[in-house]
């Protein structure tokens, strides 16, 4: 049992194997992700009842929450892969971290933009410094920018991999602290609605589209990530024989 798992992991870490496997997985991720997003959009926009306080303005939750969740998710993926890359010297893990960074930054930006648009009817301002989660998302965006600029500043790929891995691990220790300190600093955001004791405080007609959107966004993110890692692997292995065979085979 364990032996099979090890063989599977070992194979997964080899770039040509991953390249082929990812190509087979990507369409499944795209199709299931887009179907779920379509369900979430239609059900969320047309069938979910309007909020009794916020009216129709609350519907931006169907983009805001999945984006905010993915901005954290991408950072965790980067931290875990950076750790794997540093400890087991697995190059593929570094490629995953490098490929996830722009996606994470983009979802963080999306969360900030939708949060700010949501804030306009709710708080009457585009930006509210008193809201801890919006502020910690902004700091998150800076962390992503720092990671990407550090990578961009180092020419040698293996050095950029390791240096950025150290940075992301230091950042990962700090993210909960930043979150907590910003929370302590001030609180104006609505409390957690999904993850809390006694089940979610949201009506099921609103909840299911939201869960669909979260899962759909995650699958879509997975497809994008796999595609980006494939490109990254291809670029990193550009001098290896299997890439040459691949290209020669395709053009022949």
């Amino acid at each position, binding site marked *: 049992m364990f032996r099979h798992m090890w063989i599977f992991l070992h194979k997964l870490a080899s770039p040509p194997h991953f390249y082929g496997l990812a190509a087979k997985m990507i369409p499944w991720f795209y199709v299931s992700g887009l179907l779920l997003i379509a369900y979430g959009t239609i059900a969320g926009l047309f069938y979910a009842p309007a909020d009794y306080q916020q009216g129709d303005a609350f519907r931006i939750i169907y983009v805001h929450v999945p984006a905010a969740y993915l901005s954290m998710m991408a950072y965790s993926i980067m931290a875990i892969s950076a750790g794997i890359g540093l400890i087991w010297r697995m190059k593929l893990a570094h490629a995953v971290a490098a490929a996830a960074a722009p996606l994470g930054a983009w979802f963080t930006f999306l969360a900030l933009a939708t949060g700010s648009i949501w804030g306009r009817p709710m708080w009457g301002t585009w930006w509210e410094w008193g809201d801890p989660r919006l502020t910690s998302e902004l*700091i998150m965006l*800076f*962390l992503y*920018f*720092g990671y990407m*600029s*550090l990578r961009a*500043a*180092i020419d040698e790929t293996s*050095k950029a991999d*390791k*240096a950025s891995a*150290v*940075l992301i*691990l*230091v*950042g990962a*220790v*700090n993210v909960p*602290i*930043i979150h*907590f*300190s*910003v929370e*302590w*600093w001030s609180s104006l955001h609505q409390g957690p609605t999904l993850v809390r004791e006694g089940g979610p405080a949201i009506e099921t007609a609103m909840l299911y589209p939201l869960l669909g959107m979260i899962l759909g966004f995650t699958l879509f993110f997975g497809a994008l990530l796999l595609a980006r890692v494939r490109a990254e692997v291809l670029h990193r292995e550009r001098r290896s024989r299997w890439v040459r065979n691949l290209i020669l085979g395709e053009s022949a």
Partner: protein
Amino acid sequence: MTEPANPTLWQGFAAVVKRDLLLAYKRPGDMLNPLFFFAMVSTLFPLAIGPAGDQLKLLGPGVVWVAALLSVLLSLNSMYLSDLEDGSLDQLILSPQPLPLIALGKTVAHWLVSGFPLVLVSPLIAITYQMPTETIGVMVVTLTLGTISLSLLGSVGAALTVGLNRGNALLSLLVLPLAMPVLIFGARTVALAAADDAVSAGVYFLAAYCMLALSFAPFAAAAALKISNE
């Protein structure tokens, strides 16, 4: 002066600190520039905003903290730079002493040269901002803990960016987001003290953060030094 053949950990640590302090003493500009910067930034705010006393009293804690953060940042870039240029960084990495200990020694020297003077000067600035006397004590305590944390965090950033072309601007981008909790707790605690509120929570947090940074930062800095110097 004869050195023992096998120096102890403490001797190695002390030698690094002593060397860096001596270097700073020989180049007083490195030590004074961040201090002048600190004083200058604190002067800019009243000039830009106006001399109204109530406003300055409100702004004081924040201004002192932002100025301290920026001036520590200013001095971080040179932490490993001269060692890289004259090749002594290679010797430090090759030495039989554990690298985290050496990184810690360099951080301690950095704090003594650029963090500690800020703490000493800060009461003067607080007085010009008409902050009450009791607040100044809290400010000195939080600044001490905060600048130590900043030096430790910064040592990781400095080790990661040493030898990179656009190092200085990049260093700010790496360290500033990580330094937010220190800024938030430092400035807010001083502001709470000014409003006669309880300050112990903030001070405890800063002390805890300082301990956390002290436990992890030297190891991260050592790993980063090895990576950037390979």
